């Protein structure tokens, strides 16, 4: 047995889980366990209590209400990858999920777990950044709604208090016919990305960009929205030179440097991957632009 001993709790109700988190000392939430359990096996993490959210029905499900897609925090990544509602309403999420870990880890890993873990290279936080997702955070004090820009607070850091858990994620549904694109670079498929880009484009008459979102993962300490790129896109007729200009705006991002890649290389990747993601998004929105890079 590799992890240090702990007490295991498997609440069936959200309220019960909130009470356990509020009262147990040194408790950790067990969602899919695909990041937590390796850290426990290495004893990087030693918890006295694990609160397993796997048995709580309220944390599951996909619903579409008033232009928002609501996803229960304990939905498995693979369930979302293959769900018809995700493909129809938030196809960017479905595409990004195919890059998350491996089939076996996606079968267990959850969307809520990935967002709470907040690895800077993770795809799902970048998708939430692009969509301006709203995170529903539950505790004994009730449920509060946190916009993703306030939820993500830095390197592997979130706005979650120790006794709070993610209950659901709301993604706004973009107009039907919008385009999406997700590109990342990793040494091997399923490895942590050195950099990735997520793009959404809504294009109106005369190919004018009505709405745009571009976010990056793996580049900075937390997912970043490239607002300068969005500002260059909106209101302009879309063509390859506009995509090149928007992608060039990623040079404003301050990348991290580590043993896997230097900052300059990540900056280069951010630009290339942004251009490719935007090109894919444009094509899916019906604008046939040539590949710029």
């Amino acid at each position, binding site marked *: 047995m590799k992890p240090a001993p702990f007490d295991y709790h*498997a609440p069936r109700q959200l309220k019960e889980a909130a009470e356990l988190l509020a009262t147990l000392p040194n408790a950790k939430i067990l969602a899919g366990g695909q990041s937590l359990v390796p850290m426990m096996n290495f004893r990087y993490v030693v918890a006295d209590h694990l609160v397993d959210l796997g048995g709580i029905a309220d944390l599951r499900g996909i619903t579409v209400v008033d232009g928002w897609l609501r996803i229960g925090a304990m939905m498995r990544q693979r369930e979302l990858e293959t769900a018809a509602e995700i493909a129809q309403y938030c196809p960017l999420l479905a595409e990004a999920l195919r890059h998350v870990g491996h089939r076996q880890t996606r079968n267990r890993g959850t969307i809520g777990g990935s967002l709470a873990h907040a690895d800077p290279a993770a795809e799902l936080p970048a998708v939430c950044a692009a969509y301006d997702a709203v995170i529903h955070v539950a505790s004994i004090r009730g449920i509060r709604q946190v916009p993703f820009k306030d939820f993500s607070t830095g390197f592997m850091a979130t706005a979650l208090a120790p006794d709070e858990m993610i209950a659901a994620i709301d993604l706004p549904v973009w107009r039907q016919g919008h385009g999406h694109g997700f590109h990342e670079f990793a040494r091997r498929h399923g490895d942590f990305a050195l950099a990735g880009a997520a793009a959404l484009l809504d294009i109106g008459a005369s190919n004018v960009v009505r709405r745009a979102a571009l976010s990056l993962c793996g580049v900075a300490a937390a997912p970043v929205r490239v607002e300068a790129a969005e500002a260059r896109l909106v209101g302009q007729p879309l063509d390859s030179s506009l995509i090149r200009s928007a992608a060039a705006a990623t040079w404003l991002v301050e990348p991290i440097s580590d043993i896997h890649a230097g900052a300059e290389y990540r900056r280069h990747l951010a630009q290339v991957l942004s251009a490719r993601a935007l090109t894919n998004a444009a094509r899916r929105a019906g604008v046939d632009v040539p590949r710029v890079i």
Partner: protein
Amino acid sequence: MSKQPTRVTVNGKAHARIVESRLTLADFLRHELGLTGTHLGCEHGVCGACTVLVDGHSTRACLMFAVQANGCEVTTVEGLTPDGGLSVLQQAFVDNHGLQCGFCTPGMLVTLTELLRENPSPSEDEVREALTGNLCRCTGYAGIVKAALDAAQRLRDRQGS
């Protein structure tokens, strides 16, 4: 509460045990049930040797605790093997040099069982993508991929006849 009861159906047989919470499903299968076909390589979710099916889904048994499997149906490589013979997939591994030392083989077989159930006609790229979570350090992947495609063909032929 560091010990918990867990009831798990493994390869069709129900088992009830009281186990330490920290006992992984992989150690439960190997040490409590003696099912040593599930191999442990890295024990932190990288190598895929310990892959089993939990309620039909491929899962790393080193990243799941036995207490989490309470109420689940688990299938190990032993459960994929017919009495007194080999499955179509296993035979395809033998025929295509899909194994050498055999350490990664149980995880490969379990992962491919799920893939071929969901996608009976995978492309080579789809097979390779499905196997990204399973490391082989001796045979190399060429024979394994060939075996997977061969097994898919044989299963389709059998379905068609």
